[in-house]
């Protein structure tokens, strides 16, 4: 597996506060890597260190094998970034804004047309950015990040402030990027649903620490299965199943948590038989689709809550 971005023990201290604590992240090439965490968890600080905008207190970040601290310019040539603050000049048109960056990057003018085409912004490129909607600014920011076709794109909260249609557009766009351009995408977000629908890989940062990382499909498969039931009497069903030593949860629905590695089909058959024998009507039964939220909830617990629990 080739690696696009790699960090080793990446840490950053702001005064007494350790904002990022020993993050070891691996973003495979051509992946859409969702970097998840609450606001203030350390996502933006980590991305800023990957981009060479701030220096790590300890550790290192490498982009396409280039150490960001030792060769910032070499590493920056491999990265296009869309940051939370877009930094567009409102008195200039979209095309003029792109032209400024293109000049600094030494890109030819046709590159501006290419990226405008990719984000479908050509018709609006002649308008002043001050009149753009937030969604248009985000797309223009993406276009600017893609100038010079860098192999890695770092996008900080790219769906921030977008309306539902804008979010759907952005999701489609990001999902197709590796296939269309061959780029690797590292995107940070606190929106689980967005990452789940977009990313191939995820990394979860919690209180500055990377608490989970991996291929999303594999992480989901690694979760212990759960079976959701709809019965005529959930309270009685729960008592009955608990009597058989099963781990039962009654919330919005009656859920039975199986052990990791348990086969789902025999468990469904067994549960159905138990309930039918006890004359409990069973309306529906089946495995619950595992979501990124299930994975996230298991690992992303604020330190304060962990301390309270202890």
């Amino acid at each position: 597996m080739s690696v696009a971005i790699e960090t080793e023990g990446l840490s950053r201290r702001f005064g007494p506060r350790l904002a990022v604590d020993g993050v070891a992240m691996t973003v495979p090439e051509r992946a859409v890597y969702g970097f998840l965490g609450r606001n203030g968890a350390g996502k933006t600080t980590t991305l800023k260190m990957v981009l060479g905008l701030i220096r790590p207190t300890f550790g290192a970040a490498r982009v396409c094998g280039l150490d960001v601290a030792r060769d910032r310019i070499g590493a920056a040539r491999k990265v296009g970034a869309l940051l939370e603050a877009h930094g567009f000049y409102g008195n200039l048109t979209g095309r003029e804004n792109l032209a400024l960056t293109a000049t600094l990057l030494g890109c030819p003018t046709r590159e501006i047309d290419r990226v405008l085409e990719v984000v479908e912004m050509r018709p609006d490129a002649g308008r002043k950015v001050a009149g753009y909607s937030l969604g248009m600014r985000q797309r223009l920011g993406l276009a600017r990040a893609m100038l010079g076709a860098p192999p890695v794109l770092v996008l900080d909260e790219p769906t921030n402030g977008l309306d539902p249609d804008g979010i759907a557009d952005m999701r489609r766009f990001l999902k197709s990027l590796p296939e269309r351009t061959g780029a690797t995408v590292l995107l940070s977000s606190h929106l689980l649903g967005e990452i789940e629908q977009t990313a191939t890989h995820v990394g979860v940062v919690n209180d500055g620490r990377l608490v989970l990382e991996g291929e999303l499909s594999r992480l989901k498969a690694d979760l212990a299965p759960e079976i959701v039931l709809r019965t005529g009497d959930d309270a009685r069903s729960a008592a009955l199943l608990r009597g058989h030593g099963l781990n039962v949860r009654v919330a919005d629905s009656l859920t039975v948590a199986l052990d990791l590695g348990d086969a789902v089909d025999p468990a469904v058959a067994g549960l159905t038989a138990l309930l039918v024998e006890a004359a409990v009507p069973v309306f529906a039964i089946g495995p619950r689709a595992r979501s990124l939220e299930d994975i996230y909830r298991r690992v992303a617990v604020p330190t304060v809550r962990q301390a309270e629990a202890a």
Partner: protein
Amino acid sequence: MLAALSVELRKLNRSLAAVLAVAAPSLIAIFAFFNLLRADKAPPWAMFLQASTGIWAYFMLPMSVTALTALVAHMEHGPRSWDHLRALPVPRWRLYAAKAVCVIGIVVIMTALNLVLTFGAMSLAGTIKPAVAPIGDPDLSRLALLNAKVVAAALLLIAIQFWTAVRFSSFVPALALGIGGTFFSVVATSAKEGVFFPWQMPVNMLAREAWRIDTALALGGGLGLVALIAAIAHLARREVL
């Protein structure tokens, strides 16, 4: 470096920098025009043109540098574009050096405009009221050299204002510094100690004593150049959080 300069010029071209560049020297020219019309007899060219340089050096130049550096810095502070610029594969010092070069370039243009516009205003006043048409040799080469020294001596104040405006995202520290510096430059114009005060170094180019001219030029120009290089190096190296 040329790419960074070209980008800065394109940004400035669409800002109000041109208005500032013309407005400040125009005010001195307008003042000179009406002042000359009020006169009873024809003054020598050199006297009025040197007075114009004086007003420029002790008041309008420091104020213009304050406004200009704030404008150049806020082109980036306003839209929060530092992160974007600093993440690009471009040596950061070039981004700051391009800005500093643009500021100095505009100050040079404004200083020249001050001379040209004052010359034009006096000629116009002399045409309207021939009795006050300036007399004698304007000695433009001497005035050009004097104005060049004024700009050179202003390098230290440019470096200080530039660093402050770029370092702080709020415009208040740079404005407070610029207004304060100009205030002391105006109220203590003739103070001997002014030769060591960055905001008074340009006006000291008009001093009678050679030591004052030399000291202010060496400090303002020489130390100013060192300060400007140090400011650019510091800005390029510091983290923008």
